[in-house]
């Protein structure tokens, strides 16, 4: 039963993607919708992403200082650890997990609400390819904006680490900057963007899928919204592992 369900959803998800990425009826309308989505996803998530990133950096700094206390590891390593842990893992993964909660649930609720209020039927009857019009702009917007948010998150995390470590006297300014500049591997940034792109695609398409096929009333809409977050999070973590294996192996 579980396997049959899994195959059913995978098949429908793949078909939805196939329909979503077809030629737009009117490019300008899709462009306008994409811009609106970029604003919603990007500007709308800037504060929460910034806030979380500051604390990720700060907590990482404080906890690593605690762990390294009394060891022979040089203190400047803290800057190095914060930089690489945020670039490789924390910025893309935590940001996208948070965005799955914020943006993903919103997308599922928005599209699901449109389904229940017959807005999607109305567009279908007009001749609009609703899967394309409602999903493609969201996916494109997410693919453009989420990597930017992740880059900002990585940068802000490093600042967060600085704020937690330097003004409090846990380490000196020079030590932190030395750490941040040490052993820099540009490939890690590529890995961060690969993760951001894959996670962005997963969280938007899974959330849109949950909303697009919602049936019933408000309870089902709530479930779709929850499922969007849960399944996006699971798939992000799974993809995180796969990317880590593939790119670091």
């Amino acid at each position, binding site marked *: 039963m579980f396997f049959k369900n899994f195959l059913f959803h995978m098949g429908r998800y793949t078909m939805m993607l196939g329909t979503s990425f077809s030629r737009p009826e009117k490019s300008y309308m899709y462009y306008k919708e994409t811009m609106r989505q970029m604003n919603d996803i990007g500007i709308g998530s800037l504060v929460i992403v910034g806030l979380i990133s500051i604390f990720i950096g700060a907590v990482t700094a404080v906890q690593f200082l605690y762990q390294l206390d009394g060891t022979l590891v040089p203190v400047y390593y803290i800057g190095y650890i914060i930089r690489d842990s945020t670039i490789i893992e924390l910025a893309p993964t935590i940001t996208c997990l948070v965005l799955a909660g914020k943006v993903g649930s919103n997308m599922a609720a928005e599209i699901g609400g449109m389904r229940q*209020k*017959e807005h999607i*039927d*109305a567009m279908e*009857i*007009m*001749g609009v390819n609703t899967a394309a019009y409602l999903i493609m702009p969201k996916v494109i917007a997410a693919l453009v904006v989420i990597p930017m948010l992740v880059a900002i998150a990585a940068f802000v995390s490093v600042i967060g680490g600085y704020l937690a470590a330097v003004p409090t006297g846990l380490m000196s300014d020079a030590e932190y900057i030395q750490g941040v500049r040490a052993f820099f591997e540009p490939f890690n940034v590529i890995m961060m963007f690969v993760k951001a792109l894959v996670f962005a695609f997963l969280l938007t398409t899974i959330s849109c899928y949950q909303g697009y096929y919602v049936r019933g009333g408000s309870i089902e809409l709530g479930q779709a919204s929850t499922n969007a977050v849960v399944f996006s999070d699971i798939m992000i973590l799974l993809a995180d592992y796969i990317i880590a294996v593939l790119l670091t192996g």
Partner: protein
Amino acid sequence: MIRAENIYKSFEENEVLKGISTEFFPGKTNLIIGRSGAGKTVLLKLLIGLLKPTTGKVFFDKVDFFSLGKREVRNIRMQVGMLFQASALFDSMTVEENIRFPLDMFTNMTWKEKKDRVNFCLERVSLGKVNDSYPSEISGGMQKRVGIARAIVLNPKYLFCDEPNSGLDPKTSIVIDELIHDITIENNITTVINTHDMNSVMEIGDNVILLYQGQIAWRGNRDDVLHSDNEVLHDFMFASPFLQQLRDSALQK
């Protein structure tokens, strides 16, 4: 003209439509009536192509709708207007943007041409100065009118209305009915209305089919209703003793 030919529709074990064959004529308001659960909405969704029949065919002017490819379906749909039960206006758009949406999506009209067309449609449904209002800021009756304006903005050949009077007071219902009827005649549209409002039947029922347990139990027009001896029609139209008395006195006169 729209023709349904021997339509059957089942949902798993439940057979909702059982061999519906009928025609809907241009320039006339064609009504599908029946009690709740009779299969009206399913039939309407089949006619529009939102559902596929288990067996049977739907023809739009001799074109078999369900044999068409995606592009041809889209071409037919661009000739279709639809008024939904709850109007289905897009909440995030203003009234003007709602009506302009099909024009933006499917035409190469200039901004001024679109604006003129939107204003024309708004005037046609007797609405003025609501261009910048959002659907939530106008009344239910006004929302229906905006829905009609959006449905006719591309000059459709076919107009479908799902319960156009639901949630409206009797006076506003008559206004909406008359508006749909007038637009149908003016533009020679094939209009199909799904309703259980007996006022609509008596006001604008040019061609009426009554669905009962998934089959057509009666067909005729508003003039035939009073004189028909079809029991299913009587049970539906004159459900209360008061309405039965009215019918009897009308027949005596």
